[in-house]
């Protein structure tokens, strides 16, 4: 599904990722853990195609296509979804309008017919209910005045609706209390499937108690310095990142 080879990414003239290799197959959930400043968010933005995240070396193939040749919205339509650590507030655009515009834009690219208001409303309500997104939230401007938990739930709703092949969750646990975390994790788990891969980026092991990964990678100093099974997350919880920080320095 996703094949990253020797990926180097520069932001503001500074090299942040210094040769990432990562192979994610369909159906797998990979966790990327690491200390602050290790390049976790840079990796997620580089995959989404954000402006200013320049790839200087390496390659990324997604479902056999050269991801780096694609625009941000092309990547999304091809099946990449980034759940933001800090979802952007969009004044004046209701959550409902936004969801409909996004879904229909992707359907159009895939050659599917656009959903009319009635079919769309039915679909969005069906997806919203399990993660506790109310009609009232859907009528509000996207993310404007949403609490931390509401913002993250709105991200998961977008993911559920857009049904990506690869979901990249960037610090989805940040700013959530335990109940909100459980709701969000349940929403994510419901989307696990043999056709879908996930990249869960987190600083803390806590999220991985609820979204159990197949593989855990430790990112430090712009490189993956260690990979292992889910037990690696528990080991990190005990020992911390100190050892890896030293490596990076």
């Amino acid at each position, binding site marked *: 599904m996703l094949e990253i080879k020797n990926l180097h990414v520069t932001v503001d003239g500074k090299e942040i990722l210094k040769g990432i290799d990562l192979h994610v197959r369909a159906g797998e959930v990979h966790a990327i853990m690491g200390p602050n400043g290790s390049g976790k968010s840079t990796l997620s933005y580089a995959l989404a195609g954000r402006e200013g995240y320049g790839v200087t070396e390496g390659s990324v193939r997604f479902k056999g296509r050269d991801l780096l040749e694609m625009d941000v*919205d092309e990547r999304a*339509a091809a099946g990449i*979804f980034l759940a933001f650590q800090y979802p*952007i507030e969009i004044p*004046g655009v209701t959550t409902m309008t936004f969801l409909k515009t996004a879904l229909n834009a992707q359907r159009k690219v895939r050659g599917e017919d656009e959903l009319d208001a009635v079919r769309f409303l039915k679909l969005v309500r069906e997806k919203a209910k399990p993660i506790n997104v109310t009609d009232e939230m859907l009528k509000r401007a996207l993310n404007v005045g949403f609490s931390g938990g509401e913002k993250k739930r709105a991200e998961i709703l977008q993911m559920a609706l*857009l049904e990506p092949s690869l979901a990249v969750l960037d610090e989805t646990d940040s700013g959530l209390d335990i109940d909100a975390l459980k709701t969000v994790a349940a929403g994510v788990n419901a989307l696990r499937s043999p056709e879908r891969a996930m990249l869960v980026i987190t600083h803390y092991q806590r999220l991985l108690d609820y979204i159990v990964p197949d593989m855990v990678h430790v990112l430090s100093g712009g490189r993956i310095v260690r990979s292992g099974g889910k037990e690696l997350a528990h080991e990190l919880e005990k020992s911390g990142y100190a050892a890896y920080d030293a490596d990076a320095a």
Partner: protein
Amino acid sequence: MSDRAAQIFAETYDRERTALPGTDGWLARRRDAALKSFVEAGLPHRRLEEWKYTDLRQVLEKAAFVPAPAHEGAVVLPDTASASAFAAIDRHLLVFVNGRHRADLSKAVRLPKGVELHALADVLHEQWAKELVERRFDDARQSENIVDLNTALMRDGVALRIRKGIRLDKPLHLLFLAADDGASHTRNLILLEEGAEATIFESHIGEAAAFADIVTDVSLGDNARLSHVKLQDEAAGAVHLATLRTRLAAKSHLSSFTLTLGCGVSRMQNFILFAGEGAEVHANGAYALRAAQHADQFCVIDHATPDCTSHTLFKGVLDGASEGVFQGKVIVRPHAQKTDGRQMTHALLLSRDAAMNAKPELEIYADDVQCAHGSTVGEISRDAIFYLRSRGIPETQARQLLVSAFLDEALALVPHEMARDALKLLIKGWFADEGGRS
């Protein structure tokens, strides 16, 4: 003689004065005096503070407008969305071509009793018309002085008087079409007596290189209510100069909205005078400019009486090398306690070459008031664009969504539901053109 363009207007006056309406009465002397003041002052220019951003002298000198001809024979409305914007709304329609009323294109039938709708020429001998024409507010003289040009040369326009307690049954649509190049001077007089109500649409369209000089004088009696929706969408070679003067008696209500899709150079002046207690004004607008368009909104609100409310919101987007101007002033006189005055202007620049000049001012001489003003100029957030694109929304559509959302806050204030939908549709069309350009 101050400038060449003023000279052309003076020559026009010499040639046409005897043919202009109202020459047999008080107006002949009034026109002479107005022309004299106009010529002495010349056209306003950028060295005058209130005309700093819009040098009308330079603009008109370049274009050297002679009078627009009377357009005889068939007239075809341009096939544009703006020309038909209000067509689906049940309304009375008065069409003016090159500044002259065309009865053959108009349809204003079976007006309610107490609604008097006339051509300007037919009411000029009446006292109420004289009072409206001679009235001055004097809150922004540099701007109001240009009304002299109109007073000297005004030829046609609508005169609407609604008697006490009468409600105009459906909107009155004034459609001004510039079919041929040249200058026209239009004067509209609107008097709503105590408790009278009306909705007026005004559209200015046309593909000619025309100079439209329009003055609309409005007087609202106690408890009268006027809703006014104006749409302006004219040619790149056109110049639009409009002055609206509204005096509000006690507890009267004015709700106005202007959508400016622009022309070469436009300046809209809005003078509002509260002359009775408890009156209310909502004077809002939106604009979408592109290419080399220049649009200047000038708005002065004089709270001369206590307990009145004025809310103004202007929002606009500027693309290409367009230039926008917002100059607003709210004056609160010493005894105008309990004034609620708000004036906001927000602009979004869509291109590096576009520019916005905003100058909101408050002059407050009373102490028990609630007043606020604000002005912002910004660009579309790159983070927001990235966020929308990361969900699969193509860049053009993402920009359109964000810009529409920005303008929607203002468009929500259009005081007539179907007109609101019509204007929203025009904004959509504006984007579609935009897409075609890029």
